[in-house]
């Protein structure tokens, strides 16, 4: 199964709390899974790094669930149990999503956590362009509140898990408690997701001046080149007024330096155009989301039916009619997209309730 960055971090935290010692962890792995921890990470590394490498290894072997189960069997922790339950649910959903997998992953209708992703043709097209080797490096997605900008992350994540040699580093400040994320913390979070190892001192510099922010951005961009992996950064919620200026400065440097790395892609969700350096504008893609139209809904339903092998039937238009009639009175209101998505979920559940898993 593929893990989101948040799921990975939760496992990391739970394992570190349950096994604060390298030897304890090694013993558990040996007894329960017959794994030799030395093969993944040496005892000289910090516990954080050891656990991170262990999770990576488990992901590569598709044994994440086994790892968490083994840990829970050894240390009876409520946290490990809760995470195990959550992962089981995610794994089931991931399986169910495969029933909808289209030929081109950018065309997916049902994405992570079984969320419908209704049309957004322009966004899909932009994503596809960015996925090309010499494609544009930066995309800024804007639009009024409630249109599903943050939801875009689910398609991005879906596409990247199905694209070779790609990694996703995403930070969504809309859901975190602390919005004052300084450039060092931002790079730390991205580095963990990209599996980069920042040099000592780089992230802890006291003077958070423009110089340091440049250095951080430069380091990150250089790492993306050296990693020979396509690294996608998705930043959401960075318009919160508590976000420090230094962090915006860092993002600006990142955008300016993005032209230097063929490996880096940056997607800014709900990021003010004013913050984008004017010299970058010609090299960027800008997309303004608009409300989903009836045509888009109809195509979406038709696609879902086609992906489920129901193409050509008369059901799709009827289902589309039903959904549209439920929500059309909400057009132009902030809750429209949410209600539409709910109606879609409900109808699809009704239609494919069994194997579809929606």
């Amino acid at each position, binding site marked *: 199964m593929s893990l989101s960055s*948040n799921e990975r*971090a*939760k496992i*990391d*935290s739970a394992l570190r*709390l349950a096994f604060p010692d390298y030897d304890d962890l090694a013993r558990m792995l040996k007894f329960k899974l017959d794994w030799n921890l030395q093969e993944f990470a040496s005892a000289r590394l*910090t516990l954080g790094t050891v656990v991170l490498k262990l999770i990576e290894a488990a992901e590569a072997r598709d044994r994440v669930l086994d790892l968490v189960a083994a840990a829970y069997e050894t240390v009876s*922790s409520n*946290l490990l149990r*809760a*995470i195990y339950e*959550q992962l089981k649910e995610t794994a089931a959903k991931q399986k169910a999503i495969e029933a909808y997998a289209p030929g081109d992953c950018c065309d997916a209708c049902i994405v992570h956590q079984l*969320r*419908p992703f209704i049309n957004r043709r322009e966004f899909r097209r932009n994503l596809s*362009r960015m996925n090309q080797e010499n494609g*544009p490096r930066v995309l800024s997605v804007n639009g009024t509140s*409630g*249109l599903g*900008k*943050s*939801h875009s992350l*689910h398609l991005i994540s879906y596409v990247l898990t199905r694209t070779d040699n790609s990694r996703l580093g995403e930070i969504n400040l*809309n*859901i*975190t*408690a*602390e*919005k*004052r994320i300084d450039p060092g*913390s931002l790079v*730390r*979070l991205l580095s*963990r997701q990209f599996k980069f190892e920042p040099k000592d001192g780089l*992230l*802890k510099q006291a003077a958070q001046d423009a*110089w340091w922010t*440049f*250095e951080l951005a430069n380091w990150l961009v250089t790492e993306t080149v050296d990693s020979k992996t396509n690294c996608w950064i998705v930043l959401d919620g960075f318009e919160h*007024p508590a976000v*420090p200026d230094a962090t915006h400065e860092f993002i600006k440097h990142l955008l300016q330096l993005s032209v230097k790395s063929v490996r880096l892609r940056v997607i800014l*969700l709900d990021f003010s*155009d*004013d913050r984008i350096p*004017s*010299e970058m504008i*010609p090299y960027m893609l*800008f997309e303004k989301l608009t409300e989903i*139209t009836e*045509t*888009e809904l*109809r*195509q*979406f*339903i038709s696609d879902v039916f086609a992906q489920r092998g129901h*193409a050509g*039937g008369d059901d*799709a*238009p009827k289902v*589309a009619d039903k959904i549209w009639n439920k929500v059309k009175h909400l057009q132009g209101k902030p809750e429209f997209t*949410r209600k539409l998505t709910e109606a879609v979920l409900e109808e699809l559940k009704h239609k494919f309730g069994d194997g579809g898993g929606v």
Partner: protein
Amino acid sequence: MRSPRDDRDTEHMARQKPSPFLMAAAVLTIFDPEEIRPVGQLSEAQLKESFQELIAKSVVNYDRDANPIWSLRGDVRRHVLERLKDRKVIMSCLRANPRRYRNSLQKMLERYLAGQAPPVSEQNSYQLSDTLQVIDWLGGIIPGVPKTEEIQQRMEREALIATLRYLVDDHFRGRTEKLDTIRRYVGVLKPASLASGLAKHLRNLFKGDMRPPLLIYGPGGIGKSTLLAKSILEHSVDVQGEPTPFAYLDLDRPSLLAREPLTLLAEVAKQLAAQFPSNRTNFLATSNSILKELTRVARAIPQMTPTADLNQWRVNDIVRNNLLDEFGSLLSSAAGMGKPLLLVIDTFERLQFRSHDHVENLWDFLKALQVRVPKLRTVIAGRAPLDPQRGLDAEQDRLDEFDFPAALSYLKSYGIGEQTKMVRVIEQVGRNPLSLRLAVEVIKAEPEGSELIPARLNENLVQGILYRRILRHIKDEDVRKLAHPGLILRRIDAGLIQHVLAAPCGIDVLDEERAQELFRKLRSEVSVVGPSADGSLSHRPELRLLMLKLLWTDEPARTEDIQRRAIEFYKDREDPVSRAEEIYHRLAIGEDPKTVSPRWIPGVEQYLVGPWDELPARAQIYLASRTNFELDEKAWKRADLESGERRAARRAEDFLARGVPERALSVTREIKKRSPASPLGEIEARAFFALGDFEKARRSIRDASIGYSRDGKAIPIDILLLDSDLDQKIRLVESPEAKVRSFREAARHYKGDVRLLKMGLNVLASFDTEASRPPTAETSSRELTRLKLKLSPAETLARSLDGARQELLIELAECIRNTKPESLEADPELSRCLFAEIGSANPTLALDLIKKSGMGSELVSYVLPDLVQLLTLWETKLSAQTSSAGTLSNLAGLSRSGSYRQTWSNYLGDRRSDEVAQLLDQLLERREMPADVLSQLSELVKTALRRRKRFGIVS
């Protein structure tokens, strides 16, 4: 923004009481998942379920030491608190976890919960940002939580003032007279001296509201920025309850483009937003609308290549005047009619040294602004007075070194308290603030040292000697060795330390790691070097220039060695920064600009901004001509022909971009003698074209083309494109075959260039003469008779045009294949025009084009009713091919209603054009379009383009 799942979660919670663990986590900024205790008692099973919910609805981040930190998802927290609602109930949740993390955010949350938060006006900036986050959770739920806008306003104003306070610091001394000059000029504060006060009174009696800018000039390091900051600060405090609105603009900031002063206005509006809380939204809206316009114009640059000239965009005058009007009326409604606005522009020399035209441009803008804000008071700081020949209106005042008491007081502020010592320092180094600052550093480093410098010397020499003394105190020997000759380089990074500086400086740098270490150490020598925008290091410019002269005199061989190594280091690199450095060092060692010229690439200009006093004179002229930098007229008289032409070309280009072709022509006319491949011919042609004088434009193109041919050079594609623009405009084609030949030749030379496609379209359009068009049903009988009468000569031309058109379509198709897909994707309008032309001749290629560009809702809107026929035909053909009815309408998710025609007619009847365009794009991507339908679609696009043109809408 929330996902549907999040919303289901929160709605579910809204119906029920939040679960015990969620209630506990909602009042904790962060929690330990193993320590957190639930609120209230429930059965074990319920608690288990609640804990599971908490883990599912939490996010994990990492602290500075890479330890995981748990917190409740922001949207979930908000909904839990909304549900709890009551302050007491929320407070009681805190009691469940007496042992909790008490970071500053947690403390602020609890203070607001307890109703004990400090007033906003007393909060420091960190507390303010804590409050901002608490507002997200508690705002509108419990009373006493401030509004986000209130906090933002406070933070913005704090940030504005902080910059100025930083400039002034604790060591500002003297300058009483200059402060009085500014007070008099602004007319709000009373000048400190009686004479000044009287002068102000008299001046006010005789002068109206409008005043030209006040320019304070003086050499670098004399304290201009500090004086301006001090002046703003004293005007920014309340005087009779009303602080003077101000804006501080440092032209060193790359976002402030003097060639487009609206960038300045956007910043002014933004700064005023922080000063007028009740009009904050309006000022921000004005700033945003300016930025949006700038962004819109910048985005219109068609080429998405790293070499695109970003300097050519400019907002048109009508929009500019509207934005100025909007700003003027907003300011007068916010501050009251007739209130002054103190506008301070720093680092004006950036502009002075770059271009007279930019200075004039700024002056024009300030004049236009003053019309809207009569009491605009603009104080400008620059290094030199204005050129009197340019006739720019300004009050000017020179800023000199400190007077003696101010110099004494300045030294005293740094703790050099002993009177005799201070006097001795002043005797030795003079009263220049920079010299004194350097002297303070030397004294700090050498507390026991007696002599600063041997005797009173020239100011520059004083600074040079002091600088060397500072260099001596660099602790690390290798860094010291690097620092001094290192300043030969304009930028230093680890790579340059390793490959360029190490050997001539006599230090061993065996690997990159050591180079990085030295770089880091050098970087910490803040009195010697400072950071550059690209992360490299550079020496303080005025000191670098000084030391460079000394180095060339003392160590010419070593200096040249470093320059040559730098050239070697940079020469194989392609990026503009490296190329600019290579060019700089080549010119510095005296290479002939003609041999350096081939190394020039677009984009290096911004890294070769003058002045270049350290370079040989001919190098300065060469760079000035290529970068639109101004030298004095004497220097220009020594310039060679090409340099003079390049300078004129850049100036004229700028006038063209500003929409004043007449002025562009007056600049080019100054250059009488021309080189064969002079760039001025093309510019003149464009100016004539813009003025509508097509005949002269054509003549200029011909002359320029002949010039290039004589010089053995290919005619630049921009000239060819302009020529085809003319053809299209005039629609008078004498020899279609020659046009095709010319296009073929261009295609050979400029293979893959997207401009070829535009040229091809222009030529095709020029073939569309009246004579070549067959009579149609719409042709009136009178026109028909006229055409019949002309038939004989026209027939020949029509035949010739037809043949040429076919040939050109073949060539054009080849050009499309040779063009990079991303260039076409970047310009969908071009792709649509190409599709319209080649749709019938080359269906495969055409389909590819329209798939990439999409139909575009605007074009669809012109042919909406015509699409019924096309979609019906397509559906009929497809259904016949696949033996499956309604293939297209099923794909579109449409309920069939009668015939195909009826179904599509119903659909198109009540749909917006953007929806239809979306659908067409989708269908084109997913279903095959037979060649005849495609041909019909291309005709439809052609019709749409024609209709759009007829209605006068310009895309």
